[in-house]
């Protein structure tokens, strides 16, 4: 079996990898794509800078085991929300794939977003795709080294910024920046910044389309979600064939040709290096660069646009487009139902938890007044984003008294408050040796914030 040989100086990553130099392209979909990519990059770099109530708006505070999401503070016990969110994201991917094909790959996937950003820098420094190709083929010279060094410096700087931003999702960005400037970054922060930077540099600078072709699981199974009405990027062979070159302004029919002038521009602009005219291929990330490129050629030839276009398998064979089909409706229904459930659940989430532990050392004791007394340790967890004062009471036995050394129960945001309370009851009111009592906790400034917990009250017995 022939092993693949890489050109000298090019690391072998996968089979006969030929470096792809995507040609520059402009047009409607390219603009749409640039807007999407810039927006997503902006969200990534700006999010850690946002502040909310005097702290970072979105922060996975690992040391404190809390996750801040604007006004919401999530705790490890809220892990279920994260799981639900992941399931929702999966379903959304199903829904959008069935409807719009690989729109995720072309417009939103981080691999695409950063690859395009790195390609943009490459273009600014090394020039057009032809200049880049020439530069790579050229023998080593001072000028070549200078250009390459500049490109890699810019790439590495951008990678480091990306890595720094990534770690800023876990460590407050102002602390991180101060540590960086005073060169006192912790070893693990340093490790993760470098790790993430290296991954970005490798993925966006070198691996590029190979990640989509060989490493991406979605690329492998997305076709299972496709049907004949899914939006795809496709070439129109009936109109294009017989392809062939001709002079500008020639009516195709007069020379026995189709509309495709075989200029190969659609192949040159493809970031994954495929020929869309060969039909739907799993390498196609539906970036629509070939649509814009072909439309430009069609304009030049004065032929109608859309030889390569967004279409569906059904409309390509003249069956018409059907958007609302059972598959879509089922996905949409499940998606709506689940997101509705999640939103209601989060909205009704009570940011308060109460834990009651009965003192195990003594069953009960008698007070000087002749009352039976039980001791409990209470743990109050304020999961809200601001401090609260709470009112505590207990019920379950006639004339039950709650005694505490704490006159006020005030708990800081996101902290646990521990207190010892004593319950006192008259023996005559105890119906059994062990009676159920209920502790109730109520925030003084919010009716919504309340928690209850049952416990046992033990007495000498009624016999």
């Amino acid at each position, binding site marked *: *079996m022939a092993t*693949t040989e890489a050109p000298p100086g090019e690391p072998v*990553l996968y*089979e006969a990898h030929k470096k792809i130099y995507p040609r520059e392209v402009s047009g409607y979909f390219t603009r749409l794509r640039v807007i999407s990519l810039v927006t997503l990059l902006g969200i990534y770099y700006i999010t850690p800078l946002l502040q909310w109530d005097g702290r970072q708006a979105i922060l996975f505070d690992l040391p404190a085991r809390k996750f801040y999401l604007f006004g919401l503070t999530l705790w*490890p016990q809220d*892990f279920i929300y994260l799981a639900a969110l992941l399931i929702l994201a999966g379903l959304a991917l199903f829904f959008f794939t069935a409807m719009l094909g690989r729109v995720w790959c072309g417009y939103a996937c981080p691999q695409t977003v950063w690859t395009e950003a790195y390609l943009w820098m490459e273009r600014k420094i090394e020039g057009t795709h032809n200049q880049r190709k020439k530069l790579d083929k050229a023998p080593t010279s001072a000028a070549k080294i200078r250009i390459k060094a500049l490109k890699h410096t810019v790439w590495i700087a951008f990678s480091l910024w990306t890595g720094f931003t990534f770690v800023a999702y876990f*460590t407050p960005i102002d602390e991180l920046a101060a540590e960086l400037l005073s060169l006192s970054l912790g070893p693990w*922060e340093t490790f993760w910044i470098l790790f993430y930077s290296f991954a970005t540099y490798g993925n966006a600078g070198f691996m590029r389309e190979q990640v989509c072709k*060989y490493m991406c699981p979605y690329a492998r199974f997305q076709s299972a979600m496709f049907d004949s009405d899914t939006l795809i990027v496709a070439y129109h062979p009936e109109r294009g064939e017989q392809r062939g070159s001709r002079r500008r302004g020639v009516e195709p029919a007069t020379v026995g040709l189709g509309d495709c002038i075989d200029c190969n521009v659609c192949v040159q602009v493809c970031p994954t290096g495929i020929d869309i005219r060969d039909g739907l291929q799993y390498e196609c990330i539906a970036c629509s660069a070939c649509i814009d490129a072909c439309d430009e050629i069609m304009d030049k030839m004065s032929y109608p646009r859309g030889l390569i276009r967004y279409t569906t398998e059904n409309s390509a064979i003249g069956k018409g487009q059907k958007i609302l089909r059972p598959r879509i409706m089922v996905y949409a229904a499940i998606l709506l139902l689940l997101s509705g459930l999640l939103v209601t659940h989060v909205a009704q989430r009570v940011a308060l938890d109460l834990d009651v532990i009965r003192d195990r050392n003594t069953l009960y004791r008698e007070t000087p007044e002749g009352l039976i007394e039980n001791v409990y340790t209470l743990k109050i967890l304020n999961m809200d984003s601001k401090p609260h004062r709470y009112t505590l009471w207990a019920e379950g036995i006639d004339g039950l008294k709650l005694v505490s050394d704490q006159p006020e129960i005030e708990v800081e945001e996101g902290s646990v408050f521990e207190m010892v309370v004593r319950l006192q009851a008259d023996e005559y009111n105890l119906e059994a040796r062990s009676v159920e009592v209920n502790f109730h906790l109520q925030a003084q400034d919010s009716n919504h914030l309340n928690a209850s917990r049952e416990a046992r009250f033990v007495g000498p017995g009624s016999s």
Partner: protein
Amino acid sequence: MPSLTPDGIPRSQQAISVLWPSFIVAIVASGVFFSAFDPRDLIPFNLDIDISPVAAYSIGFLLFWLLALLSSFGTLYFTISNCRFLNKQGD
């Protein structure tokens, strides 16, 4: 009969096919594990280890990665050696 040997696959691809899936598994595993357990509760009382939470999570993640890596590597190793064996038989 086409060769069953995946030896034609470059080393780097083999490396990535081990590193990459185990990386994803390590992310999921550490997410689930650390949402259930606080690393501070995992250090035995009699051991006086002063370790920052970030270090504990990082080491936890890397250990999960190592574990998944061994499994992925096992799969790759057996696939390759089986293919070699079957090819030899087919000769």
